[in-house]
């Protein structure tokens, strides 16, 4: 019974792997290129292309990742640092309470 289960699991894993490989290799547009957006007859460049073209002039940062992290998506990163702060407070609470109970 266990051998049948293992064989079934192996077949399932291989099937999923083959499916994912075939799907990923046929995705349009290919990796590294920007999808184009068509509005009526006009073809516009995507938001990623817009960031790459405009970020250095708009934010003054040579690193485009930084201009997205703190420039265009500043609220997101503010929340990210809040998550970090909350995590540290939680760890400190847990360890100090554990030490007090010993």
């Amino acid at each position: 019974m266990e051998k049948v289960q293992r064989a079934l699991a192996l077949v399932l894993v291989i099937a999923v792997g083959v499916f994912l490989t075939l799907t990923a290799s046929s995705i349009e547009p290919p990796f590294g290129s920007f999808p184009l957006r068509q509005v009526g007859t006009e073809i516009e460049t995507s938001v990623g292309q817009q960031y790459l073209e405009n970020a250095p002039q708009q934010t003054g940062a040579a690193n485009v990742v930084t201009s997205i992290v703190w420039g265009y998506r500043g609220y997101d990163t503010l929340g990210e640092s809040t998550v970090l702060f909350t995590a540290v407070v939680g760890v400190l609470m847990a360890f100090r309470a554990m030490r007090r109970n010993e």
Partner: protein
Amino acid sequence: MTIIVRTTSRLLFPFIFLFGVYIVLHGHLTPGGGFPGGVIIAASVVMLILAYGIERAQQRVSILQAEMLDIIGSATIAVIGILGILLGAYFLQNVFPLGELGKLFSAGNLALLYIGVGLKVTASILLIFYAMLSD
């Protein structure tokens, strides 16, 4: 630890610390920024903990100092954000001059925000290590 580990870590500490500061300060110019740079600075102190023990490391950066550093980092981000409102723009909007592209003093508040994040991440990682190690 043995004298080899102690001497090596004492000699390497300033260089790793300086590399972390470089990563934080050049966050708006090169790949990196406050999050990885803060972790590198914290890792230099963690190396001292491994070589010399927790007491010697806490003589350099005490728990209270690490807590203060964490609060200063958070306050830097909040103050820069509110400064945008006070000067007539939106929250977290850039109110400083942009400067010349590619120079160290450029990008307005992005560089200052990354300094705040660097302080915060350094203090956070250190506090977690202190809390887990000290008994």
